[in-house]
């Protein structure tokens, strides 16, 4: 059994391209070309050169000695927080802006929730001198002012999504509508492993540099390429897809996905899609999503703006349904405490998304000889106000 996408764009029963005909030419153009473009030596060369010289890759694989001692297991942190713009998101936007250029597109659109993907997109558009429009829910614009300012400084136009619940899912709807209205000159840079095929696969491939590096770095440090476990937080699931990618078909590597329980799975304020979701269609993909019995998509909640997506990427739905992945959900409180603990033990201020992954060490026991790689997907600068409010700093 392979956990990678099949030729029809499915992961098991999940995935596909459930899109209106208006989007068919755009996604079909991408589907027919993405693998070939990515395989071109000139593309690979430019992609890796930018990852190295602009993003700052490879990011370190850091042995967290004090954390390891505390939790009595060998913990490595993959330092995606050290990427330019502060998170793994830029791996994908670098890849997609190069893809857009190869496809001859001269206008970029993107959706963003907390603003991290919006900033990463605005960044690469500035780098390439390409027009950039970022859709962001009106409510998110109000609560993520610093990232809105960053996008503007980088030359992007931030358009408020005024429909529905005015958050990430609505920003995604608006970006899709823009693409319907501008089918020829525009490329849509989706920020996660969601959306219609080929997006989940394309984004996973761009993020797969994370697990590619883990393999060679672990070989150097532990004498083996495969950890016993790889841990990542999952909202839509792009950092997780990148961290798992080269280990998916290696059953000796345990895959642990950490979702946001919000205030608790049963409180009605949660984003733990694997626990609360059912199979359905969201943003062109058949996957697990949170919805009413009637099939209306519901609004998730998490203290972490990067994890409050009502679905998960189809790869993750497949990892869950097949039992390949172990899914754990972490509450706001446990995540915040774990974030603070990392500051104190290792001198690293993590993004609240990543703090969810860190929190599992309080709940799940590992053997002392286990090698556990935790993908530290982003840094906590953007979350400072949240940390200040939560801990009364």
């Amino acid at each position, binding site marked *: 059994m392979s956990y990678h996408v099949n030729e029809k764009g499915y992961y098991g029963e999940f995935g596909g391209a*459930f899109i209106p005909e208006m989007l068919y030419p755009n996604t079909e153009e991408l589907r027919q070309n993405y693998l070939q473009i990515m395989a071109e030596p000139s593309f690979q060369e430019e992609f890796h050169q930018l990852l190295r010289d602009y993003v700052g890759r490879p990011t370190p694989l850091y042995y967290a000695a004090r954390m390891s001692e505390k939790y009595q297991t060998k913990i490595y942190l993959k330092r995606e927080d050290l990427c330019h713009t502060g998170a793994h998101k830029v791996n994908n936007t670098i890849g997609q802006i190069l893809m857009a250029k190869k496809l001859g597109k001269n206008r970029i659109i993107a959706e963003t929730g907390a603003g991290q993907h919006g900033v990463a997109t605005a960044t690469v558009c500035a780098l390439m001198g390409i027009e950039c429009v970022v859709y962001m829910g009106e409510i998110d614009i109000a609560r993520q002012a610093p990232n809105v300012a960053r996008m503007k400084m980088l030359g992007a136009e931030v358009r408020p999504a005024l429909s529905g619940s005015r958050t990430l899912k609505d920003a995604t709807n608006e970006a899709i509508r823009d693409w*319907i209205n501008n089918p020829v000159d525009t490329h849509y840079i989706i920020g996660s492993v969601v959306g219609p095929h080929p997006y989940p696969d394309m984004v996973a491939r761009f993020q797969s540099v994370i697990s590619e590096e883990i393999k060679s770095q672990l070989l150097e440090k532990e004498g083996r390429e495969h950890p016993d476990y790889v841990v990542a937080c999952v909202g839509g699931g792009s950092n997780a897809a990148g961290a798992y990618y080269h280990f998916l078909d290696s059953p000796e590597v345990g895959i642990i996905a950490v979702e946001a329980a919000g205030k608790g799975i049963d409180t009605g304020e949660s984003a733990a899609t694997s626990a609360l979701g059912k199979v359905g269609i969201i943003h062109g993909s058949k996957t697990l999503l949170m919805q009413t019995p009637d099939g209306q998509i519901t609004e998730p909640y998490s203290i972490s703006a990067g994890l409050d997506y009502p679905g998960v990427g189809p790869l993750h739905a497949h990892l869950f349904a097949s039992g390949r992945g172990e899914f754990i959900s972490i509450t706001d409180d446990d995540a915040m405490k774990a974030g603070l603990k990392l500051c104190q033990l290792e001198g690293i201020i993590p993004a609240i998304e990543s703090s969810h992954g860190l929190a599992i060490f309080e709940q799940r026991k590992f053997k002392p000889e286990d090698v556990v790689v935790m993908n530290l997907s982003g840094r906590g600068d953007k979350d400072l106000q949240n940390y200040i409010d939560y801990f009364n700093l």
Partner: protein
Amino acid sequence: MNRIKSKLQEDKKLLSIYFTAGFPNLDDTVSIIQELENNGVDMIEIGLPFSDPLADGPTIQDSSTAALHNGMHTELLFDQLKDIRQSVSIPLIIMGYFNPVFQYGVEAFCKRCAELGIDGLILPDLPLDVYEEEYKHIFEKYGLINVFLITPQTSDARIRQIDDVSDGFIYMVSSASTTGAKKGFGAEQQAYFDRIARMELKNPQIVGFGISNQETFAQATQQAKGAIIGSAFIKHLRENGPEKIDGFVKGIR
């Protein structure tokens, strides 16, 4: 014979109207349908509201949000339509997004539609290949026509493919846009209308998106069999409530 098919054989240009069930008021569904038929409308698309209507512009989005807020849901719509065939004889189509249908169960949904006298479905985000492989036999079992969309960007080859799978009419989206986005037709649309006419498809075409008045209706139906009005009628309902529908329809033809 399916009511859509017999209607398509009539020697006239067809006027089809879309409205969102549950808007402006929860219980307007039946009276809006009756009023439209009484005023000579040929066919009706009943919109099943969805939380995330990604092919729709603000007008229909807002009507969907309002309808859901009013309490509309799938079973309630079916309940409202339970006696519709006692008073209405024109073709009725349910138009919506795939997820609510999928949650209801595609077979259960189609069965219920057949029982109520619904003639067809338009589900823009149910892709052609998935329909053919998984659901076509169910639609056929219940005598429902599934309507596919084409756009100016759709290639000739794909239009032929859609024409093959279709068995009723083709929904011809007038321009690359969401609903209610464009006003009027230019040379680009005319070229597209001409291209499709020249293809001599086996299914008649009904044009939707961008039709709001007598002029655009006439232009769209010069070659196509009919036209669908959605956003303009929703605006009318928003401004007038479920009243003066006669005036709206007379303004079109």
